[in-house]
Structure formats: C-alpha cells, structure tokens
C-alpha cells in the first residue's frame, strides 16, 4: 500500500519577538553591520521561537478524505501549506505522491481588470493546469460557476459571490491526485456551499485524496471518513471522523473572548465573563444527567448603564443545530435595566429535555429592538449524560430530545377475539 501523503516528523517554527516587523529594513541591517565593524556588541533583541508544528506525523492513504481540525492557531493551515509546498518545514519532511491542487483561499491571483475568461485561463495556469486542459474544461467551469452571461466582463464588476464561485469552480475542476481544501465553504450562499460540498465529495469519490480544513464539525463529519485533531502544533487525535470530532469538543479550551480576568474599567461594551451550572444531579462541573433540573448562570460585566435589555441563551448540538433556546424576556415577562456593575443572570430549567452529548452554549445580551450587544460561546460546553446506563446491547437509539414516559403491554382488543394466550396454542 502506498500512501498519498506521508508526513514525517514535521516541525515548523517561526521567529517571534522582534518579528513584530514582518520584514527587516535595510537600515537595521546596515546599522547592525556597522556596529559589528566598530566592535560594538548589540544587545540581541528578544526573539523567541514559536513552533507552529511540532513533530507531526501521519500517513494518508490514496482516496482517503481527511479532516484537519483544531482551534485557531493549532497549526492546521501551516500543515496544509507544507503539503502544498508553499512553505518549507523547519525539520522533518513530507512526501506527496502526485499533483497537488489547493483551494487555499480561492481567488488568489484574480486580477480585477481582466475578464472572467482571462482570469480562468490565468488562474488555471497558476494552479498548474496546461492551457489545453483549461480550455477543455472551460465550459464546465463556467457552467458550475453559473456566470456564463458575465464571462467577458472584467472581474472588478463582479459581486464577491460571483468571483468566489468562479474561483472555486476553476480550482474544483483541476484533476490533481491530492486536493487541499481550506475553509472555502465559509463564504457564498447556502445553495452554493451545498454544491461546493457535493463537488468535494465527488472529488473524493473519484478516488482523489482530499485534505479538508474546517471549523464546521458537522461538515467534517459529513465529508470526511477520517480526522486528525491538532492542538498547539501537535497531533492529539487521529481516527474515524466522528470520534475525533467528539474528542475535539471534549477539549475544554477556554474561549479566547473571555480569556483572563477582566476589570470592568477595561471594558468598552458589556461582556460575559464566565458561566456555571448548578444541579442536584450534576455529575461534573459542566456535566449533568439528562432530564435533570438545573440552573445556568452567566456572569455579565456591564461598564455603562443600559436600558431595555434582555438575555437569551441557546444550546447547539455538534452539528450546530439549535436544540433549545430560552429568552429572559419571555421567561420574566419584562426587560431589565442594568447599571454599571457585575451581574449574575440565571436561567432555571425544571427538567433539561436534551439527550446525551456535547452542547455548545451560546448566550447573548440584546436590546429590546433585537440589536445584539454582546454574545459569548460559553466555554467549556455542556455535557449531558444518560440518566442510567442501559444494559441493553446494542445500546438503544437516542435523539436530541428525551422525555419521560410510560410503557405498557396489554392484550389487544382483537377482532379475532384471540388473546395472546390463545395464540400460543
């Protein structure tokens, strides 16, 4: 079995510190050289090495679709850039079999003055297609992008959606052995996103190797059969997509929005600082039994007085489906007026009707007119566990919602007049 991609102990470091400047100036270099000449020792500027990737190894089989997941800054894009040959590793190496096509920020290299047609030709060449190849696929590309009427119009007259579609279309019609996709689906309308996704699935089904970077776990689970979770430049988990996505959610990494203790004097606008969950049936700090009553409390810092406000919260599943929402206005029947200060806002739920799993908790502070003043993805999320472990094998199905109920069995009032006892005879 040959691998399509073999990443062997790849590390990548960047210099940080004086690297606040992205490039040096000639003056600095000359000054440093002159100082050296007259024998002056310059105090070295504090430069630290920052490892974006640290000893990353994995192998991807031909035809495998792999999701690369992790928080911002985990090293996903750096990894993709190494595979795409845009940047070189500091240590280790990557072996790639076949032509690599990348959908890294599609539309790079589109020139606004050129027409759609000219840009397709140019972009195809940038991505490594031969001229004849681009011409052969030209109609298909234009059709997929749905811009046939505008193909001879300069791209500067396109809407951003149109140039997006065209760019994606060019890249998607490459026929590389290895396809790299980075967050392209974050743009475009729903319909186009759906078609992009289908196109990627098609590409995978044609036996091409696809590496897919996304923050949308639902998409990763749908498109990928395997996922690799990166954290601080290291592989934390590697396996079937569902398992790794679950692992991703279980990593309790605090949300960057609310990092560190905040003084109310530093705030410009209201902000949620933390949350907690109280329940007589709590299993852990953020883990509760399905169906339990619980109180969810958010701490809200308000730097300036605010009138006619209310707080709303929602719980989202892994696939980003809103499972449950509560509005403080509906529950209390009125808006609240807030003075400067810290507040604990609490939602009391008599019985949490959600099934086992991981939920994202999102809370917002809104004006009565609906304007969002602050919102926060509470971290960590809420984990809900089964009320009692079933001894049944295989375990019973479970939906998003759980409800109490009763179960009975009784003889049916049959037209045949036969009771179960009769049937046994």
């Amino acid at each position, binding site marked *: 079995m040959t691998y399509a991609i073999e990443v062997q102990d790849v590390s990548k470091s960047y210099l940080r510190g004086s690297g606040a400047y992205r490039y040096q100036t000639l003056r600095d270099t000359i000054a440093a050289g002159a100082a050296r000449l007259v024998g002056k020792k310059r105090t070295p500027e504090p430069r630290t090495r920052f490892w974006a990737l640290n000893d990353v190894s994995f192998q991807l089989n031909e035809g495998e679709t792999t999701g690369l997941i992790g928080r911002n800054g985990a090293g996903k894009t750096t990894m993709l850039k190494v595979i795409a040959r845009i940047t070189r590793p500091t240590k280790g190496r990557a072996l790639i079999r076949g032509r690599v096509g990348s959908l890294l920020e599609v539309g790079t290299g589109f*020139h606004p003055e050129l027409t759609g047609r000219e840009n397709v030709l140019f972009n195809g060449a940038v991505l490594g297609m031969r001229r004849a190849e681009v011409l052969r696929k030209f109609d298909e590309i234009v059709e997929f992008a749905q811009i046939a009427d505008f193909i001879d119009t300069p791209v500067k007259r396109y809407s951003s959606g149109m140039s997006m579609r065209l760019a994606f279309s060019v890249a998607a019609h490459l026929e590389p052995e290895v396809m790299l996709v980075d967050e392209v689906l974050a743009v475009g309308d729903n319909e186009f996103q759906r078609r992009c996704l289908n196109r990627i699935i098609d590409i995978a089904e044609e036996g091409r190797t696809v590496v897919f970077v996304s923050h949308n776990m639902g998409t990763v689970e749908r498109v990928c059969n395997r996922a690799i979770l990166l954290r601080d430049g290291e592989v934390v988990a590697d396996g079937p997509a569902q398992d790794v996505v679950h692992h991703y959610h279980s990593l309790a990494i605090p949300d960057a929005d609310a990092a560190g203790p905040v003084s109310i004097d530093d705030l410009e606008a209201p902000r949620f600082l933390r949350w907690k969950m109280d329940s007589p049936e709590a299993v852990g700090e953020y883990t509760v039994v399905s169906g339990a009553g619980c109180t969810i409390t958010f701490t809200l810092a308000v730097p300036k007085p605010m009138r006619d406000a209310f707080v709303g919260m929602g719980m989202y599943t892994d696939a980003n489906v809103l499972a449950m929402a509560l509005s403080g206005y509906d529950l209390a029947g009125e808006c609240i007026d807030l003075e400067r200060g810290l507040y604990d806002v609490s939602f009391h739920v008599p019985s949490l009707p959600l099934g086992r799993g991981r939920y994202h908790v999102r809370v917002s502070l809104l004006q009565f007119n609906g304007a969002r003043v602050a919102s926060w993805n509470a971290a960590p999320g809420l984990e809900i566990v089964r009320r009692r472990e079933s001894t049944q094998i295989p375990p019973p199905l479970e939906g998003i919602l759980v409800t109490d109920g009763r179960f009975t069995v009784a003889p049916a009032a049959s037209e045949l007049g036969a009771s179960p006892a009769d049937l046994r005879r």
Partner: protein
Amino acid sequence: MPPELVVVEPAQRWPKLEGKSLWRHRDLAYFMSWRDIKVRYKQSLIGFGWALLQPLVSMVVFTLVFSKVGHVSSQGVPYPVFVLAGIVPWNLFSNALQGSGASMVANMPLVTKVYFPRVILPVSGALTCLVDFLVATLLLLVVMLYYGVVPQPTALLLPFLALLILVTALGVGFWAAALVVKYRDIQQILPFLVSIWLFLTPVVYPGNLLTSSGILRVIYSLNPMVGVVELFRWALVGVPLPPATLVVPSFITTIVLFTTGFVYFTKTEQSFADVI
C-alpha cells in the same frame, strides 16, 4: 504512469533545480507576461502609444540637451538616430530590471497561497518588457529611414543582443527581487540606481568618449550594459565596432551577475512565503 513523488524538505543549503516542476509550469511564465501586458494596456489611455511616446520624448530631449547644447559626438550618424539606438536597448534593460525586481512583491498573494517555481516571477517580469522593446525597435527603424540611415545586415544579431540584455537585467533583477522580499527599501533604491546607471552607460554619448584606453576603460566597461549598448548600435546603425576592452569586461560582469543572482534567488526563495 505512477504519480510523481514530491518531497517537501527543510530549506537546503544548495537547493536542487526544480526542473520537473518548471517544465510542468511552463505555461505559467507565458500567462504571467500575458496577464501583465493585458492589464497594462487595459488600464492606460493610449495603450501601446506609451511604448512609442516614451522613447520618442527621450530622443527629442536628449537631442536638444546633448547634441544642440553639449555638442556630444555621435560617431558620424545623426544624433537623434544615435541616441535612440541607445535608448531602445537601455529601456529594455531598465524596464526588465524593474519589472523582475518588483515581481515578488507585486505577486505577494500568489506567493503566499499557491506553489509554483518562484523563478517564473522575475523571468516573466522581464519577458513582459519585450513587447515595448519590439514597438520601440520599429520606431527606431522609422526614425532611421527618416534620417536616411540604412539598417545593417548585422541587424540580424538583434534578437541575440536582446537576449543578452534580458540576461543582464535578470542578473540584477534576481538580486533585487530576492532582496526586496527582505528589505522593502530596495524598491526605493532601484529607480534611483537605474537613473544614475543610465549616465554610466554609453546611451547619450559614445563609449569611447569617457575613457580613452587602458585600465580606466576596463573599469568603465565592467558596467555590463556598456558592451551590449555599443554592440546594439553597431549592429543596427553601423557605427564602428567597439573595441574588445569595451565589450569583454561587460560580458564577464553579466555572467557573474546572472549566476550569483540566480543562486541567491533560489537559495532565499525557499523562505519567501514566510518572510514576504
């Protein structure tokens, strides 16, 4: 055919030539130049007119200043023809140098997002200037005929000389393109360097005017443009063949500049995406 194996390794001390991938991207150099030419003429009002106007105005101004006021010798041909036969190769050089020098930064979004052999950028930056050169050469022929100067059969050497000019421009251009990535100051220095360089090159005056002989002449012609401009004028207009002391040192400098420039570029190219 089994798919080709690509190895992505840390930056090498002596990078290998990416022959295979250059071949795969052979269309790209053409497309890059094609794009730049299209964009340039789409955005300008009089299109190719610029390629005519620029050398024409230079010719008129230089003729007034150096011939009418300064009485500079023009080796037996009318001064406008003489000076234009210097301006045309010089402009190819200066445009190709600035085009290749700016190519990396001008294409920054591409460099940080897509892989292709980076060498393509300065090369196509230089190749783009050939269009203007062709237009200007036609202008030169018209001016020659107007003044009754008949082109020499040696004019068949022009393509070779144009290539030599491009190689020279690329030699400096490779250095500039690689250095601009690290030091943006080079972008400011380049136009200044070019305008000084013009007067150190026998464009408005004949090459034997500044130095008569000996070591000074050799030092003067270490300027790689001295030899090729003299040859250009000789080949087309038919002024006397320049002495070897004006040509050979220029060639040597060209070869040195080109090889060192190329090596420096391919060495630093490995980290462009991280630095740019």
